């Protein structure tokens, strides 16, 4: 049994990501980019999704590193544009968004708060496990576990389509990867 006093371990990459933010000298930029939301799930920010990886300055130039969720995710282009726009609006005309593939993005980098926000938005969250391990999916509307998967892929590649047998609600489940 796990000792309840011990905080569950974060994935190493996620721990490092949070450390990068905490130890950064560019706090105002991190805060600024908190306003940039996932274009497909506007309830959560790129930071909360685990997509925003790092912010650095090269002279007057802001270099933002993001990691793609799914390889073909069309939202990635929009995210990069939104980041550049937010920086430009704040007076950083010369910025660049760099995409980093490794380590590969995992849903286990989403915080518990981000998962709660997904649920409130009507999406069953992926849980903290990551991997491709199936998790218990609860209806985000009535919390019933009497749900069935209609399709492995929902409105986007990152989600599967479910329906709740208790209340009838069709909903997306953010798949763990």
């Amino acid at each position: 049994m796990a000792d309840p006093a011990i905080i569950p371990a974060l994935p190493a990459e996620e721990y490092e990501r949070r450390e990068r933010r905490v130890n950064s000298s560019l706090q105002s930029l991190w805060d600024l980019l908190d306003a940039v939301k996932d274009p497909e799930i506007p309830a959560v920010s790129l930071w909360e999704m685990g997509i925003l990886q790092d912010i650095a300055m090269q002279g007057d130039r802001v270099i933002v590193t993001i990691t793609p969720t799914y390889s073909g995710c069309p939202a990635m282009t929009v995210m990069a544009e939104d980041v550049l726009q937010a920086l430009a609006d704040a007076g950083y005309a010369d910025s660049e968004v760099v995409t980093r593939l490794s380590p590969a993005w995992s849903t286990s980098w989403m915080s518990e708060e981000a998962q709660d926000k997904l649920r409130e938005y009507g999406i069953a969250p992926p849980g903290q496990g990551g991997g491709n391990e199936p998790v218990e999916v609860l209806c985000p509307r009535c919390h019933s576990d009497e749900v069935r998967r209609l399709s492995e892929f929902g409105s986007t590649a990152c989600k599967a389509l479910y329906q709740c047998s208790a209340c009838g609600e069709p909903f997306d489940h953010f798949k763990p990867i």
Partner: protein
Amino acid sequence: MTVSKDTIKRYSIRLGDDAVVLGHRLSEWCSSGPFLEEDLALTNVALDFIGRARMFYGYAAELADDGSTEDTYAYTRDNREFTNLLIHELKNGDFAFTMARQYFIDVYSLAYMEALQNSSDETLAAVADKAVKESRYHLRRSHDWMLRLGDGTEESRSRMQRAVDDLWGYTPEMFEMDALEQELADAGIGVDAAALRDDWEQTVHATLVEATLEVPEGDWAVNGGRQGMHTEALGHMLSDMQFVQRAYPGLQW
């Protein structure tokens, strides 16, 4: 012995070709799927493969360092310059054919990308890391469809059997190694595809049996894709896929 950048570039283009050709084929199902959920699934899997192609092509362009971009490879090369394995380019046929092709490729692709994760080339390994996670979901779905259609109605079973028979001769090519791939495998950069064959056959046979389908005899086999020798299907597909860039070179939107 060091492997030249050009060799790695050509390898990355091959893997990009596999992905873009299958991605385009799957995208042809958009709005023609058997029902809405399946339409969405087909196009989402298409997106994953197109994304995979972008990563392999992007890396090839970086290695080429000659002004090429991912679009150069996808949209301005002719039929004979494409080096995809033939199974990716076959016409979609009916839904059973599309799903049988997908299943054969998913089993292969998952094993291939798992092996590529160990590549000493950091970029190839990183692309593989992403691809593996996606392939697991692709395979779960295509495997379900093999069982559902194979062990389904008389009509679905006969169509699935026909699809398996028609595709079978295109599968041995997936495990062939030529000099380029052998050099990369020996150097710890590329995958030894031949070594994946036994596991693939075992997995696929077990699924066919479970789906009450017959394992084909395997008395024919076609190859040539890696050398740019294609079926007639690819040229027609490219004329559609490349039309806009051919008519308006460099167009962006």
